[in-house]
C-alpha cells in the first residue's frame, strides 16, 4: 500500500506525460525517521563494527559510494553495483533482481550477506540492547522495544523519507516552462522518441518493471565473464525468460551516482547512454542527441536536506 500511496500527485501539466513529478511529501512517522537515521549510520549493524548502511549508501554522495561494486567487511568485493537509497521507497521492488518486495525485506540482505555486513540478527539486537541510548529510543516508539522487526521498521521508515522532489524537470512538468533549458527540453523529447521512456518511466523514471539487459543485442556476449549476479531475475524465478532480466533502475539521481549499470561498467552517463543505445534500443544516434539526453538526465536531480554536507 505504501508504494501505491506515493503515486498520488497528478498535476495538470504532468498529465499525459510518461514521467510524473515526485510528490513533495511522503507520509512517515517523524519519531521513527529520526531513529531510523541513527540506525542507518550505526556500524554495530555489521559483524566487525566497521560498516553501516551509510558506508555503501552515503547520503552526501547521491546515496551510493560511487564505486563499481561496494566493499564489505574484511575488504571483500561485492558482486553488484550498489544502487542509490534515495527514492528507493518509490521502487516496486528492491535489489537488481527484485528479490525483496519491501524496504523492510531488503534490510535482511546486507545485514546477513557474508560479503557485506556479515552479521546475524540476534547479535545485532544484542549489541543495540547493550547500548546506553537505544533501549530508551526504541521503548519510546515501540511497545516491544528492540526487535528485529522494529529495527527494520525504523530504518525502512527513514529510507522512505528520502525522496528528492522539486527537480528542475519536475518543476517543468508542473508547468514552469523555464525550469529547464532548451537542450534539456530537447533531451526529453529525444528520450521519448528513441524509446528510452518505454522502460524509464513513471514517478521514479524507472524502478517499476523488469527488463532484459541486452534486448536487441547481447550485452553479455560482448562483455563475457558471466557471473551469478549477471543472471538477474532468473536467480529468483527460475524462469528462462528471466535470464539477464533486471529491475530497470531509477534515473532520478543518475547524474550523482556513477558508475552505471549493474556491473558498474559505465563510468560516465554518456557511456551508459551509449551502451543503452547499442544493446537496449538497437539504434544509432548522433552525438548531439546523446548529449542532449545526458543533459535531460542531469535535470532530474531533485532535493533532500541529507544530500548536502
Amino acid at each position: 500500500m505504501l508504494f501505491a500511496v506515493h503515486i498520488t500527485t497528478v498535476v495538470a501539466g504532468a498529465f499525459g506525460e510518461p514521467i510524473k513529478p515526485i510528490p513533495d511529501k511522503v507520509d512517515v512517522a517523524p519519531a521513527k525517521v529520526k531513529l531510523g537515521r541513527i540506525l542507518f549510520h550505526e556500524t554495530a549493524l555489521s559483524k566487525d563494527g566497521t560498516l553501516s548502511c551509510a558506508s555503501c549508501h552515503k547520503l552526501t554522495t547521491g546515496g551510493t559510494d560511487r564505486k563499481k561494486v561496494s566493499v564489505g567487511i574484511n575488504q571483500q568485493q561485492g558482486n553488484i553495483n550498489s544502487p542509490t537509497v534515495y527514492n528507493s521507497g518509490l521502487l516496486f521492488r528492491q535489489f537488481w533482481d527484485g528479490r525483496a518486495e519491501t524496504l523492510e525485506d531488503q534490510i535482511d540482505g546486507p545485514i546477513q550477506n557474508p560479503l557485506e555486513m556479515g552479521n546475524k540478527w540476534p547479535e545485532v539486537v544484542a549489541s543495540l540492547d547493550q547500548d546506553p541510548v537505544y533501549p530508551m529510543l526504541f521503548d519510546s516508539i515501540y511497545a516491544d522495544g528492540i526487535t528485529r522487526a522494529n529495527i527494520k521498521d525504523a530504518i525502512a521508515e527513514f529510507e522512505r523519507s528520502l525522496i528528492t522532489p522539486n527537480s528542475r524537470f519536475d518543476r517543468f512538468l508542473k508547468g514552469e516552462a523555464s525550469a529547464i533549458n532548451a537542450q534539456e527540453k530537447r533531451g526529453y523529447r529525444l528520450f521519448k522518441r528513441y524509446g528510452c521512456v518505454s522502460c524509464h518511466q513513471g514517478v521514479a523514471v524507472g524502478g517499476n518493471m523488469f527488463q532484459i539487459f541486452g534486448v536487441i543485442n547481447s550485452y553479455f556476449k560482448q562483455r563475457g565473464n558471466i557471473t551469478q549476479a549477471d543472471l538477474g531475475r532468473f536467480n529468483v524465478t527460475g524462469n528462462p525468460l528471466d535470464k539477464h532480466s533486471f529491475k530497470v533502475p531509477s534515473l532520478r539521481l543518475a547524474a550523482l551516482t556513477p558508475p552505471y549499470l549493474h556491473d558498474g561498467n559505465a563510468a560516465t552517463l554518456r557511456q551508459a547512454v551509449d551502451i543503452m543505445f547499442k544493446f537496449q534500443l538497437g539504434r544509432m544516434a548522433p552525438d548531439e542527441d546523446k548529449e542532449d539526453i545526458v543533459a535531460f538526465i542531469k535535470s532530474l536531480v531533485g532535493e533532500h536536506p541529507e544530500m548536502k554536507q
Partner: protein
Amino acid sequence: MNKHIGIILIFSALIISAFLGYILFGANQSEEDSQFLENMECIHELQQLDATWSMTALQVLSLPNSDFDRLAAFLPRFRELRNNLSNSELAGNQVPAPLETKLLSFLQQLEDKEQAIEQFKSNFAIVRNSLRYLPLAAKTLSSKIREIDDNQLAERIRDLEMHTNSYLNAPDEDSKKILVIKLSEIEQELMEFPADIVNPLENFVSHARVLVERKVFMDEITARVTSDQVAKFGSELLSLYKGYELTRAKVQDQLKSQRNLYILTGAALLAMIALIAGVYTYPNAIHFNKRLAEGVRKRTSELERKANVATESAAGAHQGKSMGSMGRMAATLAHEINTPLGYMSSNMEVLQNSNEKLNLLMEEFDSLDAVLEASDTEQVRSRMHALANVVNATREQAMLDEFPEIINDMGEGIAQIQHVVQELRDYSRKDNLEQDWFDLSQCIGNALKMVNHQIDDKIKIIKKLGTTPQIYGSQADMNQVVINLLSNATHAITEADRSTGIIKIATGVVDNAVVIDMLDNGKGMKKDAIDKVFEPFYTTRDVGEGTGLGLSIVQKIVWQHHGRIFVKSEPGRGTQFRVALPLKTKLTN
C-alpha cells in the same frame, strides 16, 4: 468429621459445576466464524483486484504515454491478500484434500498472474519500441542501399521488409519460419556488406527478429494477463469452501448438543451429590428451619399488633419513603397536568376552526354589501342565496352553541392545573414558620368554615371538643390538617352513597398526647389502601378528582409537630383518623 467431608463435597460439586458451565457457554464458535468470513472476503477481493489489474493492463496498451506505475501499484495489496490466505486456516492440515488442492491451484493462478504482468510490461516495452522503429530502420537502410546502388541487395531488403510486415499483420507458423531463415541468412552475410550498410542492416535485422520472436508472445501474454483463470478458480474455491464450512458447522452443532447433554447429566448428578452431602452435613438443618419459621411467625404477629403505626417517626425514614415513591409521583403529576392540558388543547383547535368559519361568513357578507351598493336585483338575489348557504354551514360546523361549554371546560382545566400546582407547593414548600401557641378548637372551627361548601346536607357533623391545652406550632398548618381530614371524610361518605352520613370530630387528651379524632361512616378502605394512604399521589378517587397529596401533607405536618397519625378503617363501615400531638409540643423542621 461428617461435616468436613460434606463441606468438601459441596464445594467441589460447585466448582465443577461452574467449570462445566463455563465450557457450556464458552465460545470458540465466533472465532471460527470470523476466520471463515475473512477468508471469503480475501478471496473475493483477490478476484476483484485481478479483474481491475487486467483492465489496467489493457488501458496501458491503448494509451500513448502511459507508464507502468499504475500496474505496479497493485502489487502490495495483492501480496498481502495472498499471504493472508496462505497463512490462514484454509492452508491448515485439518482441511480436506479437495479444498486444499483447490486453494493451491488458486494460489498458483495468482502467482502466474503476477509473473504474467511482469512479462507483459517487459515485452510491451520492447515490442512498442521495435514496432515504432522498424519502418524508420527500413527507410534508413533503403537510403543507404540506394547510395551504394546495389539493386540485388535492395531487392532482398524489400522482400524482407514485406515478409516482416505481412507476418506482423498476420502471424502464422509458416511465414515465421521463412522469415527467420531469411533473417539468419542475411545476418550471417553481414560482414560481407559494405561498411556503411552493416550498422543499419544490423539494426533492421535485429528489430525484425525481435518482433518476430516477441509479437506473437505479446498476444499470448496479453491473453494470459486478461484471462479469467483467477476468477474461475476463485469461484470454485469459494463454493468448495462454503460447502466445507456448512458441513463443519453441522458437525459442530451435533457435537455441541451431544456435549451439552453430557454436561447437563453431569451437572444433575453433581447437584444430587451436593444435596445428599448437604443433608448429611447438616442433619440439624431441618430442625433449625422449624425454629426459624416459628421465630418469623412470632415476629410477624408482634408487628401486626403495631400495624397501625404504618410509618416511622424518624425523619430519615420519612425521607426514604418519599424517595421511594418519587417515580410514581412524577408519573402521576405528569398525568395530572397533561390531562387538563390535553382537552384544553383540543378545545383550542375547535375555537380555531370556528374562527375560520366566522371569517368566511364575514367575507360573504362583505361581498353582499358591495353588491347592494351597486343595487342590481339579480345580483342581490344570488348574493343573498350564497350568504344564506354560508350562514347555514357556519351554524352547523362552527359549533357556535358549544362555545360556552368549551370555554367553561378550558377554565376548569386551568383551575385544575392551578390546583395541582398549589398542592405541590403546599407539599414541598419551606414551611411557614409562624410559630405560636394556639388552640386546637380554633383549627377545627376554621376548617369547618372552609370546607362547608363541600359538605352535602346529608352529612351531619358531630363535634366533641374536649379541653385541650394550647399547642405551640403553626396554626395555619394545623388548619390544613383538619381541612384535609375533613375533606377526605366528606368524600368517603359521598362515595358511599348512604342516606345519612356522619362525621365526628373529637379532641382531647389521651395518654399524654393531645388528640384529634376524625371519624366517618363512609365507604372505608381495604387493608392495602390503608398501607398506602399516606403516600404522595396515592388516591382512590377518579382521575381529576383528587391529587392524592392531601394525606401526605397531613402526615408531614403532624411529624413536624412531633406527632403521630393513625388510621383504622373497615370497608363498608367507616374510617377513623387520629392525630396525636405530644403535650407542650415543639415545632421541628
